[in-house]
């Protein structure tokens, strides 16, 4: 039972980290646009985060596969494939020389990804826990949910 709970916690935390990484990149890009940051800093900041983000996302996706949560795996798979494609083509890093030309595209891609990550987040919060919590309750019911309930009632 605890495994499920741990899995749930891990995925929740990694999802939050993904969101943070992505939002930070978006902030860098909008700072660049508003001229609060120069292209060198922006590119360095963003590029340093891209591989961690890709790795974490891949792990996030693989975690569901390993633990047999195939629905969640399928949902997260497209993003992982997208990342793999970018990486394979060598297009994953932001190009400092062309950053202004690519700015709107980069932003758009990241905004779409942000939407997907938020979707994962809600799935993790609502759907996935539903499984783990119900498994929790099933587990407990096997061993006498009455006891637990009564103990709740008693307290």
């Amino acid at each position, binding site marked *: 039972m605890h495994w499920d709970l741990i899995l749930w916690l891990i995925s929740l935390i990694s999802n939050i980290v993904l969101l943070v990484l992505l939002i930070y990149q978006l902030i860098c890009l909008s700072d660049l*646009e508003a001229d609060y940051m120069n*292209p*060198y800093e922006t590119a360095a900041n963003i590029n340093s985060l891209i591989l961690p983000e890709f790795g974490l996302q891949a792990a996030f996706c693989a975690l569901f596969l390993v633990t047999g949560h195939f629905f969640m795996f399928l949902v997260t798979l497209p993003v992982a494939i997208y990342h793999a494609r970018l990486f394979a083509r*060598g297009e994953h890093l932001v190009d*400092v*020389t062309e950053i202004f030309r690519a700015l709107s595209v980069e932003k758009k891609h990241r905004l779409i990804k942000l939407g997907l990550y938020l979707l994962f987040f809600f799935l993790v919060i609502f759907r996935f826990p539903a499984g783990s919590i119900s498994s929790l309750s099933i587990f407990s019911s096997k061993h006498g949910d009455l006891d637990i309930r009564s103990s709740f009632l008693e307290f």
Partner: protein
Amino acid sequence: MRPFLSSGPVAGRPDGDGVRPPPPSAPGSAMPFASPRPMAGPPVPGFRPSPVVGFTDQIRPGPPPSHAPPTSNNFQQFSAPQYSGPPTNPPIRTPPVGPPNMNMASPMPPNMPPPIQRPGVPAPTPPLTFRPNSQVPPQPYAQAPPQPFAQGPPQPYAQGPPQPYAQGPPQPFAQGPPQPFNQGPPQPFAQGPPQPYAQGPPQPYAQGPPQPYGQPAYAQSPSQPGMQGFVEDFSSLSLGAVPGSMDPGLDSKALPRPLEGDVEPTVFNDMTMNCSPKYMRLTTSAIPNSQSLASRWHLPLGAVVSPLAEASEGEEVPILNFGSAGIIRCRRCRTYINPYITFTDGGRKWRCNMCALLNDVPGDYVAPLDATGRRIDADQRPELIRGSIEFVAPTEYMVRAPMPPLYFFLIDVSVSAVRSGMLEVVAQTIKSCLDEIPGYPRTQIGFITFDSTIHFYNMKSTLTQPQMMVVSDVDDIFVPLPDDLLVNLSESRNVVESFLDSLPSMFQDTVNVESAFGPALKAAYMVMSQLGGKLLIFQNTLPSIGLGRLRLRGEDPRVYGTDKEASLRVPEDPFYKQMAAECTKYQIGINVYAFSDKYTDIASLGTLSKYTGGQVYYYPSFRSTIHADKLRHELARDLTRETAWEAVMRIRCGKGVKFNSYHGNFMLRSTDLIALPAVDCDKAFAMQLGLEETLLTTQTVYFQVALLYTASCGERRIRVHTAAAPVVSDLGEMYRRADTGAIVSVLSRLAIEKTLSSKLEDARSYLQMKIVKSLKEYRNLYAVQHRLAGRMIYPESLKYLPSYGLALSKSMPLRGGHADALLDERCAVGSTMMTLPVKSLLKFLYPSLIRVDEFLLKASSPDADLKNVEKRLPLTAESLDARGVFILDDGLRFVIWIGRMFPPELAASLNIDFASDLSQVNGSNNEMSRRLMGLLKKLRESDPAYYQFCHLVRQGEQPKEGFYVLSNLIEDQTAGTNGYVDWIAQIHRQVQQNA
């Protein structure tokens, strides 16, 4: 000068003289505002200052158009007509609306003369009446005073306005007469938007006669098939009426050909205080007033800027020093002081022309105004009358002490560099230029050579001989003696000279074929990063060791036509982009000289220049016996031309308009700040603008290019170019004021950029589509009123656009596929085209072909003939004559073509050696040869930026060199490409589809 030049009698107001503008002092004088004249408040969109030209869209269904535009907007004259012409009804107008002062949107009390004026006219010279707009009722009123509309010629266009005249009310005409702008002094607005009736005969062509519209210029193109009883506002070509027939029915002689080369647009100078078109050219000097109008302008909307262009004699940009007072700039938008600002409040305040903010004039800069609102000292202040100006920047404009000019040489000394003789020529040239390198006595210089190892040279002034240090660990590069590698040229002059003397011999026995280019570049970067400067790279082989190693690619013809094709034209290794970005950061500009006879991957090496504001010089198969002169000239030019160091450039423009993309060799440091570590007079930059607001409310848009740089003398300076362009509401007007040169320049950059991300084919069709769309839109303007069947119509201003478009799609970077050009040449020429100024680009696209045999044989004085000789011929095989001698000059090289029937003994006397391919024509002593040399010299002087290498072609021999000519005969149909006639026919067909 007559104040109302613009709307003078010619302007369709026969009684024009009857209406005399009040004396210049009028503006301030009490205008009868009390008269029931409508005062339009903020400038009404429907009413735009329009150049007199054209008369497209006004409809006046009712009575025949007969009203004289009251050019003088003296209200008095309105209420009490003094026209000598037909009687005028006193205008009955609805309540006064505030005076539209361009500067102030807020209405002013009607009976108070508005302070000053229009931004465009800060200082009209006395004869020009200076008239605040506000006195003019710009508002359309339904009951226009039927003023005698004098102009004669039938106005065919009056019917069916294909496009809304501005967003004005449907009866624009009704509002009639008082179009204030046409009477202005000859200032920008006078030539504003289409003032149809005001100026009688249409003056259709933006590039017409130089005088704005003083005289009627009838616009028929010579090729126009027949007058249709009225004047047409466009040019046309008649095409065979049989659709689908193979014969386009087009007379190839009638096609417009840009045989005069580049013609600088005259409309741009309508705004008399604009900078010279040499520095900045707009693709159309009429800015659309709405996004919807802009979207119908399918050509690029933008500018080509060449901030340091060489000024002609006597027109040098004045340099001003405001000293500690600082440079006067707008508080809010940071615009520099320029001729278009206006002074108010007795000269104590000035209004920014870009953002309309009222700024204080610094105490010691205040000067009283004269009656017209012009500063009395304006004539002594170049910044108030000149469009181009240079300020000496105080310390606020420096982040560090101005850097000394710094030249660093990174020279390949591998075996091919030595064998080709490159090393020797380079060493000699540098040595011969040492005296002329700018910036004495601060100039710094340094050298690194490399093959499979990297050689540093200690040139400390205390040494007698340079000390060479070899670093062979190219994987972990370090710089020995970092302080003595860069030395002051004047102090170490002897050491530098002895180094250059010994350089060729040092490596003459080398057998090293490797090239550790990447590590050497890194080393040079480490040496230079303290100061920045210019890095000149001489590269002879493909980089093969260490960082930035490159491999042979582009040999596979199968890649062409697939999506991978474009990847051949972009750098293979991200190292190059990173290095370029780092170099720009530390103010290092890179020029690449590439020499290899084999593939050197110019696509990757060129990236270094692309993002550092440099340029690529490419000498395929360099052999010093043949190409030495070219290299010598171009390297010397590079070393000695005036260079601006650690520069940044920004172009500001008025509210509602924004530059959103930039094209050329530079790196963007923020959304609108162009970083240029080293920039010179031979570079141009293109940019495109977009409208930020759906509707522009101003009547003029101003542009200001500011280049902040360190001059070689160590002074920090700001060069400012200011220009203004009217806002128009009429598409036809935009076409009339279009500038083909600038358009072609921007289009070529866009197309070349497109080849970096997609197929050549796509880039060509992109280009063609742009041309087709623009001509289709233009056709739609006139399709309603005219029978256009079988005719291709185009605006006079764009008559050369199709031919340049054809030339562009046949130019080296865009032409054909794998077999049509070597990849390296493609990339090198593409890179060059990204930097060329408009004039050189046009010449490159449509080279001049001249016939010289008569000139050579005739014995009269050479000077007199030169002019006759320079008559350009159309670029088709028909122009060539087997009995003649021709020179083809594209600005980058000459091809001398000698016909088969040209007497061999004469050819021999030219002392031309056909055996060695294209060797120089070595000047022998006979007259013909001297004349030929003289002619070549003269042609070369016309463009000193490049040395035109001379190829010799004898008709029927040397197929390879013959190709130089053939590939430049762009009007001919060569394998798989269109000839000019077909091209026109094809464009015409596409224009007609769904038209």
